[in-house]
């Protein structure tokens, strides 16, 4: 183990001696994993027949390595390399933000909307550690970059309707761009009733309603300096979670940031970007809409984060350095009140997150060393200091019920090292990477108190004495081009040490009525996660193309048990027809039977499925601007299905006709 770290460190250091520009490729194809672009509505031509008004969740799901865990029709939880929130670092333009729900009903991605973003950057494994420590990878939701191109006033209107669930979406955006000042504002409103699964079965509690507002403004002081202010307000109400025993009456986020940009010309330092930010989240669970519950509860949660980062890009000869110094302070508090069915008994109360404070500061250095015409060695290191504090005395005492020693504070020193060699030739690409990283346990893993997991039907108790989870990762990708045919393979292997997972604590009674028992977070000595994807595409003609992906995933603990939420064999095929004004795509999407499921963690065998989608798009140009029309049918065959990532196997949407209409005025 130690020698491996040394090897990585050596690779990293050795690369610092050489140099050149690295033309970082921004891949716009959503099935590629490096970067997914959430394309603005104005860039239809780049767009692969998706809905212009689709949610971020829909966008993310198109990526190879991302799978969305669904607990309802809203607020899906992204996973990368079969690892969910606690093993990922999800940021909004470098800003740390943490959900306020103890039951993961509010992944960060639910607090922004496509209208807020320019693109999404996804880094697999330790490549995703630019903004924080992770095992599985990182997702950074990029806000639009400032522009002072003097393009003047612009506006756009989007309208969307889908038959399944009577889903309505409206988006409006206004933008003024001057030479030294710009301001843009956008608003999106979405509302859906209960949707129908295949066979017209109504899924109760699958409704949602949300709106999102954002304002961004910037001022340019000089040729080299500018500032940006960004404010996002997102509010979802009446969100149903068919797979869970409770719904959400309010999920509200305010995300504010102030950024200073410095871009000196013709110097080694290419850019220096410094951001100060603040965000606050309120999340209120609600069971008033459920007719039958064992006991009525209130479960509010709050999460506030303050932070900064300062990021520099440097170029010297063949080297391209990225430096990122960042820090944040988070306060997570969640409580639960249960209203006794017996009026003579008092209400019951507990802190499910007893006011946990997290203080982190760290530094990230990355070097893209372009040491020959077609070879690049990318090395990165992140070092961080992570401190957790239990601010409520009762939090310490309540955890002491389960643990002999509970310290008020815990300090961790986290490290991440990654090195990737890339070879790019005209007809083939090769990349090999090796990395090592650590992460601290999440608030729930460390300090949660009776957090009910409806997936395996256990109450979870945090463990403040968990060791850092560590992963050794190897990844490989290869792509070969034969004229119009392209085939690629990409694989990652993770050897995870002290893999954090809940272990059944025998003879401890659950708090949740009807639960099977209690699990306390502990760690497996080690676990292995492996995934491999084969992509291929064939360009039949200028207008007609076919592409397909086949994926295989594997995850096992050292006890020989399967890990939960590991994707079964999956495939995707698409037939594209593209002209400048018309696009069409027919998609086949399916999974094999989930045979390596984990009964220990509440999984059952999810049956195989395949669905067919048809997406169509037209563009019309006129004097005022242009009009984009997107329409199609999802799940044409009205298949009733659920995937391995659907919480408690609740079925997904049946046949759905959709139409999105966008007007862009210039």
């Amino acid at each position, binding site marked *: 183990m130690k020698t491996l770290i040394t090897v990585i460190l050596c690779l990293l250091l050795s690369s610092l001696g050489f140099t050149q520009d690295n033309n970082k490729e921004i891949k716009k194809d959503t099935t590629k994993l490096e970067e997914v672009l959430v394309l603005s509505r104005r860039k239809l031509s780049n767009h692969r027949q998706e809905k212009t008004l689709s949610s971020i969740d829909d966008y993310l799901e198109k990526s190879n390595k991302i799978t969305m865990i669904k607990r309802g029709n809203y607020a899906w939880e992204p996973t990368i390399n079969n690892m969910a929130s606690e093993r990922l670092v999800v940021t909004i333009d470098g800003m740390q933000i943490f959900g306020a729900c103890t039951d993961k009903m509010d992944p960060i991605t639910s607090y922004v909307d496509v209208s807020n973003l320019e693109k999404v950057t996804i880094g697999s494994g330790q490549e995703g550690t630019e903004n924080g420590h992770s095992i599985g990878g990182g997702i950074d939701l990029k806000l639009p970059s400032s522009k002072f191109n003097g393009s003047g006033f612009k506006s756009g209107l989007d309208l969307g309707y889908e038959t399944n669930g009577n889903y309505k979406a409206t988006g409006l955006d206004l933008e003024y761009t001057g030479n030294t000042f710009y301001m843009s504002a956008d608003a999106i409103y979405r509302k859906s009733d209960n949707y129908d699964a295949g066979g017209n079965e109504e899924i109760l509690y699958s409704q949602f309603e949300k709106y999102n507002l954002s304002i961004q403004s910037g001022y340019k002081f000089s040729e080299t300096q500018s500032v940006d202010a960004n404010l996002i307000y997102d509010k979802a109400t009446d969100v149903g979670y068919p797979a869970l025993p409770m719904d959400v009456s309010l999920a509200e986020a305010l995300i504010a940031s102030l950024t200073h940009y410095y871009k000196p010309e013709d110097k080694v330092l290419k850019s220096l970007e410094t951001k100060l930010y603040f965000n606050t989240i309120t999340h209120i669970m609600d069971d008033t809409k459920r007719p039958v519950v*064992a*006991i009525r509860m209130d479960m509010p949660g709050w999460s506030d984060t303050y932070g900064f980062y300062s990021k520099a890009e440097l170029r010297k000869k063949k080297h391209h350095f990225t430096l990122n110094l960042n820090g944040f302070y988070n306060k997570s508090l969640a409580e*639960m009140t*249960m209203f006794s069915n017996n009026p003579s008994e*008092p209400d019951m109360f507990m802190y499910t997150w007893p006011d946990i404070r997290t203080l982190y500061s760290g530094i990230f250095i990355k070097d893209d060393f372009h040491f020959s015409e077609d070879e690049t060695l990318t090395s990165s290191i992140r070092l961080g200091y992570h401190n957790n504090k239990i601010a409520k005395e009762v939090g310490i005492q*309540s955890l002491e019920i389960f643990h002999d020693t509970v310290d008020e504070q815990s300090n961790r020193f986290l490290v991440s090292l990654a090195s990737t060699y890339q070879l790019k030739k005209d007809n083939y690409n090769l990349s090999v990477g090796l990395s090592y990283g650590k992460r601290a346990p999440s608030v729930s893993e460390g300090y949660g*108190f009776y957090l009910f997991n409806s997936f395996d039907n256990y109450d979870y108790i945090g463990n403040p004495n968990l060791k850092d989870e560590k992963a050794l990762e190897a990844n490989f990708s290869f792509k070969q081009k034969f004229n119009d045919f392209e085939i690629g393979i990409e694989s990652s292997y993770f050897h995870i040490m002290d893999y954090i997972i809940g272990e059944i604590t025998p003879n401890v*009674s659950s*708090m949740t009525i009807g639960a099977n028992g209690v699990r306390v977070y502990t760690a497996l000595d080690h676990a292995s996660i492996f995934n491999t994807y084969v992509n291929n595409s064939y360009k039949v003609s200028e207008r007609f193309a076919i592409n397909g992906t086949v994926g295989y995933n594997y995850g096992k603990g050292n006890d020989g048990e399967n890990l939960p939420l590991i994707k079964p064999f999956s495939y995707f095929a698409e037939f594209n027809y593209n002209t400048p004004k018309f696009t069409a795509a027919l998609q086949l999407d399916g999974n094999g039977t989930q045979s390596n499921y984990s009964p220990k963690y509440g999984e059952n065998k999810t049956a195989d499925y395949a669905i067919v989608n048809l997406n169509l798009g037209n563009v019309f140009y006129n004097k005022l601007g242009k009009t984009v029309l997107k329409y199609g049918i999802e799940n044409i065959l009205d298949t009733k299905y659920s995937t391995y990532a659907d919480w408690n196997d609740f079925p997904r949407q049946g046949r759905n006709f959709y139409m999105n209409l966008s007007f862009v005025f210039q």
Partner: protein
Amino acid sequence: MKLKYILPIAFIALFFSCSTDDDNDTSTINEVKGLELIQTISNGNETIELYNEKGIFETGYNRISLRLKDNTTDSYIEDATLSWMPMMQMPTMQHSCPKSTISKALGKDTVYEGFIIYQMTNEDSSGWSLTINYNIDDTDYSVTETISVWQYENQNTASFMGSDDSRYILALVEPKAPSIAVNEMKVGLFKMQDMMTFPVVEDYTIALDPRMPGMGNHSSPNNTDLTFNNADNFYYGDLSLTMTGYWKLNLKLINANGEVLKGEDVTEENEASSLYLELEF
């Protein structure tokens, strides 16, 4: 410049404001500070003051502080010896209850203390009287007065017949202020030898199983059975409380030979033991 003047003024202000807070006249230390007067009992030249935290007697364990005042000098007598005898008058008979001896409160000059465990009362708080015997300078005095004992809202004491045909009285002493934590549980256990005599029962075990009936009989982990502590003659164990609310502390009384004298295991079929105490917070 200005700071030079402001600072001393600020310090002086701070100093005086602090010092006024605790201008306790050492000559009249209030030895019953934080306690409420329950009742005074006059007997000739003396008045007996009874205190506890709430200012009323309630069923269950009552820790009581007493002071004996000399009415002529208006001062408290510091070297008396006291004993007491609570008595419940029933229609056909009378009985007493478990109680401690009365001793001088540690570190105090005028306060005596002890406890009484009222195992029952009438709905209107009537029925009990308290006899206090005291000795000052080798002279015995005695006074009996009616007292009010109110029913505590929960079952904090249990009086029951064991399978050995003995009657026992069990009373919850701690936790007085429970929290979501592992609380120290302290219980007094007495045997009713006759109507007037309630000796401490030694070396039994009291098995503990706390439950929340309102939460599907949720239990908590890492509780320990209560065992006898011969230093103070009470039983001690760990009581884990995972949330606030109403808790039923199901108990089993086991004698030194391991025989269960009272109480049953809590199972799916049997929601509660016949021997239990209650707690609410």
